[in-house]
């Protein structure tokens, strides 16, 4: 039997598929970060905490109101998005005239607060959230058993990523957004309500984080630290893709999922650090990121 470095091809195929599934989370999360950075010039450190809040929102909807997975998939991102809009209006909007650094620090503080509060009220063990009945079970693909839910995760993330990309790059609204990124004053002069657009963009970006949180809830345990572990990795994804590049964030998200998947087979110990090694190399060779425009 043909083997690659001692690993049979069907195992490799399975691992690549799993990498793609993880990449789906990276893609949706880094997409949100990239949208926010592109328009607001803010590095949203609270993204991980809001992802966690999305998962908790789904859990709370179920637990307190009896609202199941499918409605939660829409409602939880709306809740997180609305919360994000409040944050943007009350705090972030005061920082636009300042260095990026302050946005980063403010959202870092917000992340600490959100995480700390959830820890206080819900403990750390995590809360159970079941896979919806429609998607339980799975299919045997021959080389691996693919749970239906994981297949759904990939499909949902591709759909959301493509939709977002299409909206920003191909529609009139997206054109305004991109124009406002380049020159907010000029766009404002054309009668576009730029502050409103910025507010909604931030809301949309964090709603994506909330959406990823709901997607994650049934497969990872819903716990207050779930975002903390992810945020640094997602940062790296955005930087590698090129800050603010929508396409870059999406493609890099999936790609790094795959690379991480391969590392897990050949050098599992290194799978937590491989992304940072890639980030360092990319920044050295092509500082604007793989898909970014040179500054």
């Amino acid at each position, binding site marked *: 039997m043909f083997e690659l470095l001692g690993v049979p091809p069907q*195992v490799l195929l399975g691992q690549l598929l799993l990498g793609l599934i993880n990449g789906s989370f990276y893609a949706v999360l880094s997409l949100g970060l990239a949208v926010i950075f592109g328009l607001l010039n803010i590095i949203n450190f609270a993204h991980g905490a809001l992802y966690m809040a999305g998962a908790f929102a789904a859990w709370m909807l179920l637990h307190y109101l009896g609202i199941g997975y499918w409605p939660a998939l829409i409602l939880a991102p709306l809740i997180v998005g609305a919360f994000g809009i409040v944050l943007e209006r009350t705090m972030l909007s005061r920082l636009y005239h300042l260095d990026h650094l302050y946005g980063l620090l403010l959202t870092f503080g917000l992340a600490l607060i959100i995480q700390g509060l959830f820890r206080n009220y819900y403990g750390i063990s*995590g809360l*159970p959230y079941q896979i919806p009945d429609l998607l339980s079970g*799975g299919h045997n693909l021959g080389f691996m*058993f693919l749970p239906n839910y*994981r297949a759904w995760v990939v499909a949902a993330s591709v759909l959301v990523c493509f939709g977002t990309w299409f909206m920003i790059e191909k529609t009139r609204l997206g054109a305004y957004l991109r124009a406002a990124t380049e020159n907010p004053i000029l766009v404002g002069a054309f009668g576009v309500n730029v502050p409103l657009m910025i507010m909604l963009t931030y809301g949309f970006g964090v709603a994506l984080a909330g959406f990823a949180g709901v997607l994650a809830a049934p*497969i990872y*345990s819903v716990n207050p*630290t779930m975002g903390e572990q992810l945020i640094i990795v997602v940062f790296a994804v955005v930087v590698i893709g090129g800050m603010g590049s929508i396409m870059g964030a999406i493609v890099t998200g999936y790609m790094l999922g795959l690379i991480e998947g391969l590392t897990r087979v050949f050098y599992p*110990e290194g799978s937590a650090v491989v992304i940072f090694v890639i980030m360092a190399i990319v920044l050295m060779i092509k500082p604007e990121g793989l898909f970014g425009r040179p500054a």
Partner: protein
Amino acid sequence: MIRKLAICSVAWAAMTGSPALAQEIAVKLGVLNDRSGIYADLSGEGSVVAARMAVEDFKAADKGMKVEIISADHQNKPDIGSNIARQWYDVDGVNAILDVPTSSVALAVADITTEKNGVLIDSGAGSTSLTREQCRPTTVHWTYDTAALATGTGAAMTKAGGKKWFFLTADYAFGHSLEENTIRVVENSGGEVVGKVNVPFPAQDFSSFLLQAQGSGADVIGLANAGGDTVNAIKQASEFGITQAGQKMAALLFFVTDVHALGAETAQGLSLTEAFYWDQNDDTRAWSKRFMDIHGAQPTMVQAGVYSGTMAYLAAVEAVGSADDGKAVVAKMKEMEFNDPLFGKVTVRGDGRAIHDMYLFEVKSPDQSEGEWDLYNQISSITGDEAFLPMLDECDFTKM
């Protein structure tokens, strides 16, 4: 200044030999554990509640003892833990430190405890080093250790037909020691290790590693990790149909709170070893009900161990007549024999290892389970001598 005054007044009391002071034994206990991190639910405030219940049940006040309890959060960081321990001994006059989950913190605190002649009664940490490589005359390791868990789960599952093992090991010292202990037991019981993988810690997604385990053809997948990592691994094993396909999961460090978080649906059939379960007999049920009324959750073995260890410590202090000399109190504990409602008969060995029975449990299926906390079937009990590693001669402090 305040410190000097305190020293003066102590000296004054000693010189005058005040009779009031001679009668009352003052004891200060510090519960040092994780109150916000991954071990907060299995130790945390619950351990403080357990310690308070011990003081109450010991009827310390009636016996002329004045017991005070303070607590702090070590955040699972050895530097923070050792800082608090030092300050407790130096400034606050703490006599004994209780609980201390997280091995790295426990080892740091054990050192300081010896230096300051205090007492460490550890319930939460798992490292066997506490009574072996880093044994100290002032350490008592009460509830469990990784070797006992490995013996319970490893031996029982191998004998039950799980001959081929695959390990998912959290890639840090604790995970490796858990893995090593279990491999020894598995091989001694006639099993073999068909593969293992080191998983970076902490991890959320185990699917890739589980797939490697599945491909190995092992009978048992040993999880040498803890807390949220184990929860996620088990959850995903069920999702990928691994448990349904007949491979068994062995959680080598898992607590009732973790099973509760997972739910019986996902955790059913899982084997694990614990020193205590609330629903074992009338005594444990009665005590656990009191605990539940105060704390709102059933006790873990760590919290029960804090109760049991505190009772034993107070008995030894009463016998010695003072809590000041930690070494003497621990030496006394090693001479005594304890019998408490939660752990049954307990003795403390020369190296500080508390010896008591351990139990192998299996998680009930949802239709067997009659309530949120009705989670375990007891499979067998393991005697203390079987469960724990034999004592090292150089650690037998009763012979020094």
